[in-house]
């Protein structure tokens, strides 16, 4: 295999009957995995379906499985993942495949809402804005998780999600944790209720794949551990 090209295997088709298809893609300097997929679509097969938007790691739409690892493809250089001139690219794990490399993100976003990952405001525009103490422990905890780009890499990496359809998953629980620690959010009771149900935070086995593969170096595992502590505390306060 020469360095002049990459041997790229792409899993194609709807879930269940995905067919691996091999493409030779010319190697270029500073080439990302997304560049490789785009080259195939633009030069070899225009029917290849994949999803991307910003190309700079902001929008969270281009995540795929690359050699068995969920990654944001726009910020992953092909030189970092290619093995012996070859690389295998597939649709994100744990989500239904629509076509080729495009997965249906609905279950992921539905769980985001089910985990109460929405703003719970009580003030109107006429009220003063809630004061935020930037140095407080709660704000530090919230800040640590708010840069999530909803790419679903953690969701694809999680074996608990793979084994339990009802499990909310790392990113939704991380968002629940940031809102729980947000001085502007008044949804504490609703959040704790949502994340302590049958699909909630107590399903997590602390395998840590979410934290290991988060492209933004966030730590959903610690957020889920925090939710476990808070839900337990709320449970004992209520007296069972």
């Amino acid at each position, binding site marked *: 295999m020469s360095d002049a090209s990459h041997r790229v*295997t792409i*899993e194609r088709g709807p879930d269940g009957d*995905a067919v691996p298809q091999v493409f030779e893609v010319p190697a270029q300097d500073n080439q990302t995995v997304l560049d490789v997929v785009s080259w195939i679509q633009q030069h070899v097969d225009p029917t290849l379906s994949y999803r991307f938007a910003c190309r700079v790691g902001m929008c969270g739409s281009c995540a795929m*499985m*690359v*050699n*068995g*690892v*969920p990654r944001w493809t726009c910020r992953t250089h092909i030189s970092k993942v290619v093995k012996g001139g070859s690389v*295998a*690219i*597939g*649709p*994100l*794990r744990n989500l239904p495949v629509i076509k080729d490399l495009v997965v249906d993100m609905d279950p992921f976003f539905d769980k985001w809402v089910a985990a109460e990952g929405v703003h719970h405001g009580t003030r109107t525009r006429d009220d003063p804005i809630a004061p935020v103490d930037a140095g407080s422990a709660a704000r530090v905890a919230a800040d640590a998780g708010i840069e999530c780009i909803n790419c679903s890499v953690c969701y*694809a*990496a999680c*074996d608990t999600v793979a084994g339990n359809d009802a499990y909310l998953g790392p990113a939704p629980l991380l968002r629940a944790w940031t809102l729980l620690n947000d001085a502007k959010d008044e949804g504490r009771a609703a959040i704790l209720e949502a994340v302590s149900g049958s699909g909630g935070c107590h399903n997590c*086995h*602390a*395998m*840590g*794949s979410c*934290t*290991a*593969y988060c492209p933004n170096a966030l*730590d959903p*595992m*610690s957020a889920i*551990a*925090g939710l*476990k*502590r808070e839900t*337990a505390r709320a449970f004992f306060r209520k007296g069972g």
Partner: protein
Amino acid sequence: MRAARGITSRAHPLWVAYVLHRLSGLALALFLPVHFYILSLALTDPARLDGFLSLSLGGAVKAAEVGLVFLLAVHMFGGLRLMALEWLPWQPAQKTVAAAATAVSFAIAVLFLLRAV
């Protein structure tokens, strides 16, 4: 092989710690009934128990015991690690804690081996 289902997405220390904890628990669950059966021989058939106890002085059984001590230790320290993870203030060095739990378990097993030989 489906890229989406490869094992590589799990090849990191905390996932290995998780599997080690589960497998050690399963192995101990299989061992315990045998353990209690052997103990029950003290009441039901002391002669057979004595026969087994003399067998347990052999090298193979000693080696198995070293494995058993490791399983017990790694399951206990792995469990303590998880309880600390879930109940104590968050500690960022989770990989180090998992590695320490395994290392201490290994040291205990080696100590048992040194005393056994």
